[in-house]
């Protein structure tokens, strides 16, 4: 009878192999511990060896499509040089133009119905394409991204900020319009490809319109 390695030892061999591999990575990325490039390399499908992300120091960059909590986009007020004006009171970019027209599609399509919108009215009582109140209950929100997907005005988008843990929920987890409003500069930062696509679409539409005219 031929000698057969006991199955227990075979398994241990694999574990040993894995352990050795983790050190290989250490040598390969020596001195570049919190380097973004080294992190990307280790975390990709081609990587091997140690796999850990040292969370608070190094973070996995969320992909562009990543969706967490929705936010409303506004175009900031621009000064003469074309730079956004910073509002002194809030420290945020001043609101120039709110994209939301209060059409209500996001509220209709939301599966758990966590979006609440109050449409603005003119003094005569006619509806105005603006919203006065906009609430998202983020404790009901299921991060499905439908609101952003079906918004015809690119006014609601999914945020990338996931570091939202806090000690209380009754006030801070019901996002009102002030919390939800974020500048389009921020939107362009986290969704560069999407913004480029939106821009191209808009230009194509305008070109088509000009042709017609």
């Amino acid at each position, binding site marked *: 009878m031929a000698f057969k390695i*006991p*199955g*227990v030892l*075979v*398994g241990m061999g*694999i*574990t040993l192999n*894995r352990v050795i591999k983790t050190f290989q990575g250490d040598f390969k990325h020596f001195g570049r511990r919190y380097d973004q490039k080294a992190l990307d390399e280790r*975390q*990709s*499908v*081609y990587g091997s060896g140690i*796999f850990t992300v040292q969370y608070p120091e190094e973070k996995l960059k*969320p*992909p*562009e*499509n*990543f*969706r967490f909590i929705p936010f409303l986009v506004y175009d900031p007020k621009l000064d003469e040089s074309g730079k956004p004006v910073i509002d002194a009171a809030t420290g945020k970019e001043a609101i120039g133009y709110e994209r939301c027209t*209060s059409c*209500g*599609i996001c*509220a*209709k*399509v*939301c*599966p758990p*119905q966590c*979006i*609440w*919108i*109050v*449409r603005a009215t003119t003094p005569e009582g006619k509806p105005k394409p603006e919203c006065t*109140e906009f*609430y998202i*209950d983020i404790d009901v929100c*299921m*991060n*499905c*991204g*439908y609101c952003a*997907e*079906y918004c015809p005005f690119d006014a609601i988008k*999914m945020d990338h900020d996931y570091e939202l843990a806090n000690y209380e929920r009754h006030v801070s987890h*019901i996002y009102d319009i002030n919390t939800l409003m974020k500048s389009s500069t921020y939107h362009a930062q986290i969704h560069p490809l999407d913004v480029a696509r939106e821009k191209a679409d808009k230009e194509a539409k305008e070109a088509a319109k000009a042709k017609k005219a």
Partner: protein
Amino acid sequence: MAVNAPPAETKPLSANDPQTIAEQIKTKFPDALESASAQGIVIKRDHLLEVARHLRESLTFDYLNNVTSVDFPDRFEVVYHVSSIDRGGAPLTLKVNAARENPVVPSLVPVYRGADFQEREVYDMMGIRFDGHPYLRRILMWDGFEGYPLRKDYHEPYFEDEKKPFGTRWDQGHHVIAEDRNPWHDNVQYPANFDAVAFKAQIDTVREQTLPDVSPTRLKTEKMILNIGPQHPSTHGVLRLKTTLDGETIVGVEPVLGYLHRNHEKIGERNTYLGNIPFTDRLDYFTSMNNNHAYVIGVEKLMGLRVPERAEYIRVIMAELTRVISHMALMGFMYNDLGAFYTPLIYALEERELVLDMFEAASGSRMMCNYMRFGGVARDLPDGFLDKAKHLVEERFPRVLDELETYLTGNEIFLARTKGVGVISREDAINYSTAGPVLRGSGAKYDVRRAEPYSIYDRFDFDIPVGTAGDVRDRFLMRLWEARQSLRILKQALKDIPAGEIMTGKKNYQIRVPKGEVYGRGENPKGELGFYIVSDGTPNPYRYHIRAPSFINLTALDRMSKGYKVADLIIILGSHDVVMGEVDR
């Protein structure tokens, strides 16, 4: 436009054709039939049992896919889907009507044991009683719960409106939290004049009422009840097992379910068709892509939508990647149950993370992908997706699967713990309506991807692995082999994926579904995942039922674990690969 090839033909085989079957039944039982159409055969209540027996024994409809019920304004309708393991094809639909007042239907448990839990679920949710059921009690809710939740006249405490979208959200959507709308200021409601102070909860009982029985050995031991769960490290979630033991030997296991019953069906009937897609993600949270796929197939069948070629390929790629990582993770979890604590699981989860990264890049979320839409997929694949997938499928995953195989499958302890444990014969596996690797591990070659090919699975060359012994080891190996077959499919799909559109028509949130009913199904890593949808032409489904493979597989747990030691119970359960989100829904 790449909509050149029609989706896979899903014509039923002639042997499964309802009209032919109806004729056969008519000749045998002249007065059993109420009506017969393509929607199903309606059988008179008193003849159900004999017709079912005839179908099973003479017409080889040996597999009961699904039992559910629909609440119509004038009647209750109990719906059965039966099919044949060897013949495959679309399942045959049987229906029985029950009166609105005191609905009773004969139980099918004497014919199909797999009806056991499903009939209990129907009783629990709709209040239809099954005559002759061995243990008709609530299964998802607790005993003593007031009301039958899936009846249309049942309103839950936070009830707001019959259908979504609610009118209060837009135009004048001043935020009101649900608690304030309910008079009890909580998610509860009580009958009038209810005395909560004097109320005493019911005492737990066990299904086998044979406790004082004394064993015939000289030791005169008594039977003992051991409660496992709902919080237990090895029950894969919040499952509770009431186990009756004789010494260390299992006499009976009664799974107690419903600890994660999240009312998918009730919420789903209020949602729009589109709104249900993200909810299907949360059924079996390991395999959201497959869940999306099965649901979308069902609704598309009803709508008669064609899916562009590229979208079909993307769907298959996503579904098969999910299958690979789900099976890998299960192997890790099973080793965990055997005491190989965490190490193999960590190896498996590492690979899973890589695929989740790709899902995140494509769909936006790691687990709750919400990627498929009616008529296509949500967005096209991001740059570099295919290269990464190719690397994983061709180089990395085969290596990892080999590693996971050599890691412990030859291990002496593993073999001693799994070989010949939890055996279930082919006949029993079919009769208990088990699905997926549990069914195939016992030697029944039944896979929805081959039995009733959906999407574009008929184009790919792959095998359906089957086990021989029907024990835990075979069920374990099934996962390994199936993952390898998935890699085969993936290789072909990644090679052939065409360019083109990913969606038929324009993106639209208002979906019109014509009147009708459909049983759409797909092969989930856990087994046959089916969606029974009844549409009344409105934007919301009238009935939305989920045939959950893990739930029905649990029916066989008692049969499988009888006679084995209590230590084996954990691994027998592990080999089922239950995910409680799907079991309890």
